[in-house]
């Protein structure tokens, strides 16, 4: 047995309990809301071209969310989830990675896909679960996935991606891929058993994974102070023997800086890193949720003043890398493009009935083929009851 299993402290002869809040955790802030940076702040590596790409991704995100909320209210899509107020955590995270790095997200991380270039058409095809959806129309809106852009398909059960990220990163390390896995989850999902399983296994097996907690204050209606009583999620990193940092999640420069450094550490030392980004879910949990039942307008208004996109825009303006005329034109164009894409995607057919039984296994097994054949005969008998598929059998 290795004797190095705990760090021996001072020996005492009367009981000395350590306090559950005794670990002080600094919070990294680089960018102020007015667009200036703190004195002596260490900025991330970011040139003008990349900075503009980041801003355009943020703008796309904001407009996509606005448009899709409207589309849901009009009954055009069944469901939607915005990331209003948290866009910096995902766009900034993706911007700090290499494109070969894997991203395993929870569900509110469409910002990563936007930054990586997932097309507007692919977003729409997923949201409208039509036959061009990469996921073949099988999952509810926002359950995106892209092999091309190294973004694992979203799974609704919370926290399941966390131990998977540890395994994925371990495989990357063993095969010498010089790549990491970035794993997102919320402070609510950090209560799941899979959180403990995943972080401990990554630490023990030295997997190059970056655990990124979006602490946005709420798990649907449950506030963080009913989720845990310790010093946030970051304090747990200490328990796993893991490098840990807390950052302002509405400060995209802090997000990029932290993820850049975490990536470098994960690759160089084959170790996981935990990042806790403090933010606020300005929107509802989903279109099925109404926050007025559990929080005040005043609280929301206070956080709206910390808008991460406005903050970054101010910085871009101050750098003279962006101007108001460009900004107005960008938002105008995005609104038109997204509206047009909605109109196209909603007219595309639903998937064919064969897609019901493919991909359960690599090939369709005999019993499933039999069930499909029987189903087709049934649909032919009652075509009006199955309008999406009846005409195509």
């Amino acid at each position: 047995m290795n004797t190095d299993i705990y760090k021996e402290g001072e020996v005492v002869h009367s009981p000395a309990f350590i306090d559950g809040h005794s670990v002080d955790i600094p919070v990294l802030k680089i960018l102020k809301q007015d667009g200036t940076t703190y004195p002596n702040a260490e900025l991330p590596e970011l040139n003008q071209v990349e900075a503009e790409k980041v801003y355009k991704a943020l703008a796309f995100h904001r407009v996509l969310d606005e448009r899709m909320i409207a589309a849901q209210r009009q009954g055009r899509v069944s469901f939607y989830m915005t990331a209003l107020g948290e866009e910096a955590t995902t766009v900034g995270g993706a911007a700090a990675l290499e494109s070969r790095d894997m991203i395993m997200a929870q569900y509110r991380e469409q910002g990563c896909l936007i930054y990586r270039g997932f097309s507007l058409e692919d977003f729409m095809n997923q949201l409208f679960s039509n036959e061009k959806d990469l996921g073949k129309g099988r999952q509810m809106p926002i359950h995106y996935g892209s092999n091309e852009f190294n973004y694992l398909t979203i799974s609704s059960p919370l926290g399941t991606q966390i131990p998977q990220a540890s395994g994925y990163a371990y495989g990357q390390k063993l095969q010498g891929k010089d790549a990491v896995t970035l794993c997102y989850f919320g402070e609510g999902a950090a209560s799941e058993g899979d959180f403990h399983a995943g972080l401990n296994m990554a630490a023990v097996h030295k997997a190059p994974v970056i655990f990124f907690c979006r602490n946005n204050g709420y798990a649907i209606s449950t506030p963080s102070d009913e989720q845990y009583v310790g010093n946030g999620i970051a304090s747990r990193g200490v328990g796993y023997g893991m490098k840990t940092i807390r950052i302002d999640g509405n400060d995209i420069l802090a997000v990029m800086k932290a993820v850049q450094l975490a990536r470098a550490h994960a690759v160089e030392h084959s170790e996981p890193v935990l990042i806790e980004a403090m933010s606020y879910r300005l929107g509802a949990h989903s279109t099925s949720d109404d926050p007025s039942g559990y929080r005040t307008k005043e609280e929301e208004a206070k956080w709206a003043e910390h808008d991460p996109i406005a903050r970054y825009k101010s910085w871009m303006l101050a750098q003279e890398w962006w101007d108001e005329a460009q900004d107005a034109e960008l938002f105008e164009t995005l609104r038109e493009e997204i509206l047009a894409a909605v109109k196209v995607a909603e007219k595309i057919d639903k998937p064919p009935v064969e897609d019901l039984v493919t991909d359960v296994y690599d090939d369709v097994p005999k019993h499933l083929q039999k069930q499909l054949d029987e189903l087709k005969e049934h649909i032919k008998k009652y075509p009006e009851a199955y309008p999406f598929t009846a005409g195509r059998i």
Partner: protein
Amino acid sequence: MAQMNLLQAINNALDIAMAEDDSTLCFGEDVGHFGGVFRATSGLQEKYGKARCFNTPLVEQGIIGFANGLAAQGSRPIAEIQFADYIFPAFDQIVNETAKFRYRSGNQFDVGRLTIRTPYGGGIAGGLYHSQSPEAYFAHTPGLKVVVPRNPYQAKGLLLASIRDDNPVIFFEPKRLYRASVGEVPEDDYQLPIGKAEVVTQGNDISLLAWGAQMEIIEKAAEMAANEGISCEIIDLRSILPWDVETVANSVMKTGRLLVSHEAPVTAGFAGEIAATIQQECFLHLESPIARVCGVDTPYPLSLEREHMADHLKVFEAIKRTVNY
């Protein structure tokens, strides 16, 4: 050919799998240097290194979550759950993740390279938590394959097929037979088909169907029945999901009778699924109701283990009742 017990056959299959593919990994609780509590992974860490054969922390949901990630990444993980009774913390990872990975992504991602090995079954004085046979829970989950071998030869061939199959497989190992079952096993590489049952003994009066360690039980009962002039056809189902309806139905159309026996409790056990399908396929050929001889609907007991089990005497009685219906 060599004489091997069931554990040695499994160890031999794992050795072949790790030698042929650098991305094949074996891990689980005590799996590393110690070689697993039953020694199925003996010698593998010494041969292939700590990076590829290792102990994990004691967290089943983590073992399977980690394995799902590795498989999605392109590695070929063989994860061990120390006892099938302890697979339930990983139930979510298996049922909601492993089984649905390919489907939910439209085949953009899959964990087809994953194999989960776990010892199952009773008759070893293991009490509630070292005796269960949970195959039916997993048989209810599209996307998984479920395989159970009956002897060393079957174990090696079916395990190699499971590891190489492009779908996730749960491989239940009959731990009562680990050392008790010894037989001739080729030292070379070979595979046996997943999804195919095997008619072990031909017969005319009744078809007996089982899998894993229960095969010994029905074979013993069949011998007793033979002494009374009853000719039993004996079938090893081998794969629970997908299962070989055709082989079973063909047998039943010949014999006109079916008895299914498993260790797990009778209610909602896999015998119920088989009975429902076979009465559908063979209704006009059946000369008696399909019999189920299974565990009593209780948690697996310790001191009353013999009473609980579907032993050869219970099977023998059910054979006579069915034939004389």
